[in-house]
């Protein structure tokens, strides 16, 4: 009967970490005021919650004004209409004594709602206080958590009944004690969030400023908990009503003849045979009221996000399959090109576009537009650029592993001459692992924490190479040795959490190699690792390319990595390739201002001798996909931008080897030998950009000399 003490799944450590990192202190503080506003919006956005609020309001109002409008007194007995169904006189029928059910339901409503509110106030109040106290001090937390664990493992119903034995059917007191019993579950839900709020930097700052624990709790922790508290209150309100009705049902309701919903249903249960209608109105009203409270709580609560799944739901996969079929059916204009280079192990990306799926049939924003590049067997292509330039989306599209809600919108991904952008997921299963493999940024999260390294490796080897169990086991050990793990036998038996990040990345690489792929897509494989480990992993990848002849698409923002390992580079900015060509050519004589700027901003790109006094920076940020201008997307941050930059810029031969560059001023810059300035950009050279004024009207032609 008290099952739902902790209705919300306890937040996981990952959740808490995410909420800690994703909400930097200043923003969080600024957001505080907006919390209530946001909650209101969330509430109004949910039709169920609006209906629930309305129903509760009507119920309370109707109940409080009941004496004024109710057609019958609760104890009026109409012996001409005993156990009647709905009639003109008794809209919801009558009970065994001929009492009007409608009148009794509404007369009982205020008491039921009011006493349930006691449970909410006691339970949520106590739970919140305990959580805030525990979040502030570790010792206190240990004591409180132990005690609440004990409370949660008690048979609450039985204890409540024993309490009733002692205090009688004093409903408000019983509901308060119920609140105490339920506070343990509420404490558990709130504690995680309170702790993550307590560990914010601005809380540390407030402590340094001399704010006491109480001040911190009230000023910094409580506001952040507001939404959770409201959610819990709504859910507990619903549980309280159910339990109260349940108690009345078994005979521990308010003293007779006072009507109660549980008591009325109990009465109805006596007449299932002769008057089944009787249980309908009261049950429906109770269910509707509980439903209303739940709807409000759920509307405000954090719903699990189905859209973030790495394996989309069946419905989402059907949706995507339809989109893929559309691409496959679309006449590919560059088909002739495709036929020209069907070489084995060759990747040619042609005019690839990736975008967010729009609601309905329309398209959402584009994330990658018109990207083309080639990767020859045995070579390494680097995709470079800042975060948010579409590098990872481009890389994931090569495996057909774009996140849910993002899909290829056009163009071709030709693998061995076949367009895999138009391949079904089933077909892609034949490509993934066997032809094209993936290494992720965070090795620890890329491995399944629930299975041993050995299981994960052998399962992949058996699947991808069709080997038997014993053979696969040997091969797994060979692979681990190949990626430089000395005690392979031991590592096979470990779980991912038992090995270091560098070791995990080696295991992840071994896993990627298990199907002997021809192309390895590496998404920032060294970013999450220590500097020394980075170098080891890079040299391992270099050796693997040399040994196996596979090619690599390396996503990175580190030009050092590019110089170290890449044969070709494609510099990406705001979803486009802005410059590509041979690594040496691009690093030695960059043509695009963005490449210039990246090199100027990279401390490792300069020798110790000619290290500039001051490193260059690139003003501003990569624009959001929805804010991309029609012309050059870099213009707003470019030191060399001019009026010509407002028009769309084609990708043209850059003049260095086979390189291409997307800049109207590339030739001019090359001739004049311009450098990206390290100092603050002089006001005269900075392009004033405001979203309100279109760029081309405010461009100031600058003196480049």
């Amino acid at each position, binding site marked *: *009967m008290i*099952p*739902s*003490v*902790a*209705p919300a799944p306890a937040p996981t450590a990952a959740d808490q970490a995410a909420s800690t990192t994703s909400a930097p202190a200043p923003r969080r503080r600024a957001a505080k005021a907006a919390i209530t506003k946001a909650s209101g919006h969330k509430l109004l956005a949910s039709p169920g919650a609006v209906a629930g609020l309305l129903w509760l309001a009507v119920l309370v109002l109707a109940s409080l004004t009941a004496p004024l409008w109710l057609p019958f007194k609760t104890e009026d007995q109409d012996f001409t209409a005993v156990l009647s169904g709905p009639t003109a006189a008794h809209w919801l029928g009558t009970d065994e004594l001929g009492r009007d059910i409608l009148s009794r339901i509404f007369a009982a409503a205020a008491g039921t709602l009011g006493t349930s509110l006691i449970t909410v106030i006691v339970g949520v109040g106590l739970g919140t206080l305990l959580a805030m106290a525990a979040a502030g001090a570790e010792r206190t937390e240990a004591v409180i958590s132990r005690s609440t664990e*004990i409370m949660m*493992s*008690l*048979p*609450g*119903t*039985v*204890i409540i*009944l*024993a309490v009733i*034995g002692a205090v009688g059917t004093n409903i408000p007191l019983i509901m308060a004690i119920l609140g105490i019993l339920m506070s343990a579950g509420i404490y558990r839900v709130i504690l995680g969030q309170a702790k993550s709020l307590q560990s914010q930097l601005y809380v540390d700052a407030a402590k340094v400023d001399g704010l006491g624990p109480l001040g911190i709790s009230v000023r910094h922790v409580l506001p952040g908990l507001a939404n959770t508290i409201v959610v819990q209150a709504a859910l507990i309100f619903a549980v309280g009503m159910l339990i109260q*009705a*349940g108690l009345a*049902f*078994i*005979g521990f309701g308010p003293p007779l003849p006072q009507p109660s919903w*549980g008591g009325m*249903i*109990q009465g109805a*249960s006596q007449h299932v045979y002769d008057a089944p209608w009787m*249980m309908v109105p009261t*049950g429906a009203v109770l*269910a509707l009221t*509980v*439903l209303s409270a*739940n709807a409000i709580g*759920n509307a405000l609560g954090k719903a*699990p996000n189905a859209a973030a*799944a790495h*394996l989309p*739901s*069946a*419905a*989402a996969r*059907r949706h995507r399959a339809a989109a893929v079929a559309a691409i496959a059916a679309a006449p590919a204009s560059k088909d002739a090109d495709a036929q020209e280079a069907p070489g084995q192990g060759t990747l040619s990306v042609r005019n690839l576009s990736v975008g967010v799926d729009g609601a309905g049939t329309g398209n959402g924003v584009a994330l990658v537009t018109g990207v083309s590049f080639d990767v020859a067997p045995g070579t390494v292509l680097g995709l470079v650029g800042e975060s948010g330039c579409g590098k990872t989306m481009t890389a994931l599209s090569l495996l057909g*592993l774009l996140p849910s809600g993002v899909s290829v919108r056009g163009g071709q991904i030709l693998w061995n001459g076949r367009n895999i952008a138009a391949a079904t997921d089933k077909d892609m*299963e*034949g490509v993934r692992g066997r032809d094209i*493999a993936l290494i*992720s940024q*965070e090795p620890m*999260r890329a*491995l*399944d*924490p*629930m*299975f041993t390294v050995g299981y994960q490796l052998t399962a*992949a080897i058996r*699947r*991808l190479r069709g080997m038997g169990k014993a053979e696969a086991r040997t091969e797994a050990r060979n692979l681990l040795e190949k990626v430089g793990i000395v005690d392979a036998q031991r590592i096979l038996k470990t*779980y991912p959490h*038992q090995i270091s990040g560098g070791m995990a990345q080696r295991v992840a690489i071994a*896993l*990627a190699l298990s199907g002997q792929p021809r192309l390895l897509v590496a998404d920032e494989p060294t970013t999450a690792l220590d500097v020394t480990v980075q170098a080891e992993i890079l040299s391992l990848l270099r050796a693997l390319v040399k040994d196996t002849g596979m090619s690599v698409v390396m996503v990175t923002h580190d030009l050092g990595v590019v110089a170290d390992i890449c044969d070709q580079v494609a510099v990406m900015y705001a979803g486009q390739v802005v410059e590509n060509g041979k690594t040496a050519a691009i690093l030695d004589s960059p043509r695009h201002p963005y490449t210039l700027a990246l090199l100027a901003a990279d401390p490792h790109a300069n020798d110790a001798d000619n290290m500039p006094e001051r490193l260059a920076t690139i003003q501003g940020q990569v624009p959001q996909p929805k804010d991309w201008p029609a012309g050059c997307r870099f213009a707003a941050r470019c030191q060399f931008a001019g009026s010509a930059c407002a028009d769309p810029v084609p990708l043209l031969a850059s003049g260095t080897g086979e390189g291409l560059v997307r800049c109207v001023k590339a030739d001019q810059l090359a001739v004049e030998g311009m450098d990206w300035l390290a100092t603050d950009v002089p006001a005269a050279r900075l392009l004033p950009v405001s979203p309100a004024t279109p760029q081309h009207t405010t461009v100031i032609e600058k003196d480049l000399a």
Partner: protein
Amino acid sequence: MALFVAKRLLMALATVLVVAVLAFLLVHAMPGSPGAVSLGAGASQDAIDQLNQQLGWNDPLFSQFFRWLGDAVQGNLGVSLIDGRSVSTDLADRLPVTASLAAGATVLSAILGIALGVTAAVRGGLLDQVIGGFVGLLVALPAFWVGIVLVYLFAVQASVFPATGYVPFEVSPQDWAMSLALPVITLAVGGAAFIARQTRASMLEALQQEHIRTLRATATPTWKILYVHALRYASLPIVAGIALQFIGLFGGSVIAEQLFAMPGLGQAVQTSVSTHDAPAVQGVVVIATVVVVAVNLVLELATKFLDPKLRAS
């Protein structure tokens, strides 16, 4: 691991002790002395006082509690004030009823809940929304009301199951199952809805983990990703949810037993509380706690065993 088990066992013991004290105090706060309850309304004050003296009611609370505890440890929970029967014997007769009820409801709600939750998370789209709405409705329906509807449908309209009563397993396994059907379903409806929600949320969280992408990148078949890897990852919170449900369902049996006239612990609590039968209340509270704590302990150890991080340490 051994240390962990030992710690948990100690916690469980502490829980039972705390409840024993609590039950003892509550019983002493009940209106009416045991003598008055036992002898009924017409008894003289002298007779009541004499019986109270005899029962040790006037001894210091401390010695009363430890006398009770000493007896309880040896399996003697005293004698009912109403009918003079041994509380231990009575509860031993009743325990199987409630145990079958709670265990049946837990298993049924776990099966239904996991099936619904996994389906909603895995299939998505319209089916997810339909299941979500259905589950939301089930959560809001009071168990006792569901029970009446079930009686109306399956006992009154179609005589598939008996409306009330309990047949012990030893008498007839088939009738036993039939007599349990409606009460078990009644209790399982709400439990299944909660487990379905928990399962859906846990599955979705599991599918958001990055290792799912690794599995796809190594051409792991979809069914294996879903039902081996994601479900395995989601199993920890699901089992924890089931443990919580068991506590609730054990308590919920009070309602089911009342509605279906089953001679279980719940009915014992209800009658002994109504009649102020102190030893019976005290006994049943402690026994219920022991059962719930024990089952919880087992399920918690199972959860920990499912987690490689804890198993290894």
